[in-house]
């Protein structure tokens, strides 16, 4: 991993922890492993989540995100390792630890034959200090007050999602765990959800969000843990991780051959052929025959342009591509991870 980069946030890898101790650690996951049958589903997961931050949990489907989340809320018992929430071990003292957690695991499944309100009452009876006033409060927070006395079976997916969040907020949690919260929402719903989550975090709540979409995490999270195949590969600030990744830049230059020569002469720029660029199909299809693909760190783009202009090369088009999750993986694992 390239550590030459200077960053404002500390870059944290899975092995070395260095979290500033001034911030309250709400969730601490230490070397958690899970074996189901003979297979290690989770090999080694370690990370910490602090109060007031939005923590992303990024990984492709099947990487072990859901299993990890289920372990966080005591649905699955870890084979090894510990999970502490606000200082309480989830496995040993679930009745204390879970009092600080609100969660939606996968889909927010509620009792369809009860009204939204009755559902909230149901869950309110299961934790201390939640009265009718609080139920009313969370209903208003998720703006469900108009339909709250309808049966859940009549709710749209978005409304169920909102009711799920209301349910998670009931106990004034310090940690909110959301599993793919934007799944199935329309674009406006997704935007509203982001704004909403930021609002919660700004009030001091730690929000743990899982996703398989890098863009989602980029837009929402402060820090992220990247998981693949049951292990956390990297933990760090989202901006840094993304910046750290090679950015692909596509150049359309004239004359092409001369331009390519200049690009190749710059040491920090790597000219790639189509094969090794790992472009997604849509982008690859949009390339013109004379396009040059390079891996260029973001801060070099402007100086490179200047060099080209000085050399009298005409620049028809420069396109910077946002990295995909696959490229991010490539970055953090230096190619070892993706087969």
């Amino acid at each position, binding site marked *: 991993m390239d550590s030459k980069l200077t960053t404002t946030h500390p870059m944290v890898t899975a092995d070395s922890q260095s979290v500033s101790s001034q911030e309250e650690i709400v969730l601490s996951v230490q070397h958690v492993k899970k074996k189901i049958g003979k297979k290690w589903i989770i090999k080694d997961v370690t990370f910490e989540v602090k109060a007031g931050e939005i923590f992303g949990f990024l990984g492709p489907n099947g990487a072990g995100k859901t299993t990890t989340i289920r372990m966080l809320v005591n649905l699955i018992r870890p084979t090894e390792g510990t999970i502490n929430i606000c200082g309480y071990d989830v496995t040993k003292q679930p009745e204390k630890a879970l009092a600080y957690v609100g969660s939606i695991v996968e889909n927010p499944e509620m009792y369809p034959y009860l009204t939204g309100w009755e559902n909230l009452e149901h869950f309110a009876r299961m934790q201390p200090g939640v009265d009718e*006033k609080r139920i009313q409060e969370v209903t208003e927070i998720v703006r469900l007050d108009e339909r709250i006395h309808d049966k859940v079976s009549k709710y749209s997916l978005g409304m169920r999602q909102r009711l799920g969040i209301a349910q998670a907020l009931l106990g004034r949690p310090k940690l909110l765990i959301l599993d793919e919260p934007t799944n199935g929402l329309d674009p406006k719903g997704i935007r509203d959800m982001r704004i909403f989550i930021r609002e919660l975090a700004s009030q001091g709540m730690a929000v743990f969000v899982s996703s398989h979409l890098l863009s989602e995490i980029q837009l929402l999270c402060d820090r992220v843990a990247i998981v693949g195949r049951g292990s956390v590969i990297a933990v760090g600030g989202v901006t840094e991780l993304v910046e750290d990744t090679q950015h692909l830049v596509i150049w359309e230059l004239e004359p092409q051959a001369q331009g390519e020569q200049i690009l190749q002469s710059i040491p920090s720029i790597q000219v790639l052929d189509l094969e090794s660029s790992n472009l997604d199909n849509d982008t690859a299809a949009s390339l013109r025959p004379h396009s040059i693909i390079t891996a260029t760190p973001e801060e070099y783009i402007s100086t490179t342009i200047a060099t080209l202009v000085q050399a009298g090369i005409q620049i028809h088009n420069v396109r910077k591509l946002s990295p995909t999750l696959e490229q991010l993986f490539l970055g953090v694992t230096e190619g070892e991870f993706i087969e």
Partner: protein
Amino acid sequence: MKSSKSSVRIWRITGITSIVATIVLIGGFIYAISDVLNPVGSTYTSDATASGAKPATTVATDGSFQIAVLGDSLAKGTGDDDGSGFARRTVDLLQKNGKEAKLIANLGINGQKTASVLSSLEEPGVQHVLKQSNMIFVSIGANDLFNAGEALGNTQQAPSKQQLLANLPKASKTLQQILERIAQINPDAHILYLGLYNPFSDLPEIRVPGNEAVTAWNTTALNIINSQSNMSLIPTFDLFQQNLNKYLSSDHFHPNGTGYEQIAERVVQSIE
């Protein structure tokens, strides 16, 4: 605040009812266990209000026939294809002749002998049935005499007259007790005793001893009956003697439908 009042109400009602129900049921459970494990036998003294006073014995005096049948398989109607027996057939014939007739109950039991009929007469149910009737048919004795047909099946040699008559003195004495007891239970009823026939009259070995035994029995029965008022004997010996193939069922012991019909016709003739 629009609290869901319905769920509070549901909880109150179900909660309280179910707790009360549970307590009652546990009580019943404990009561049941203690009652089964430590039963205290007691004799029940009937209070008339509970089950209704015993109805006064009201036997119809309007000339209608209230018929009860008592005795063995012949009384029951064994061998009859449709299970009617002579009693039911008698009732049907009477009704066909424009009489009012009703079969109160058929208390015939297969294989019954004189002794068990006599003891059954002390059963309140049997007594009750007899008291409800004004016409009582009795068929008994064949099993005492022929030992339910075993005389034929079990021994290679044909039973002698002596063997067949061995039971006669004792059985006929019981018969007398039966008839007297019935008359005592219901003095107003007419008692019809069905005489025996010889089901083996077509088997040369038993024909003669059988005939003699049956005749002896019938004679004894007639003597008993003649000494009582309100009793008569319906002879069947002559009826079957030459017509065994026609009137006996496949078991070669009981009459078939036609045989019972013959008996019924004779009964009707005698009582009309």
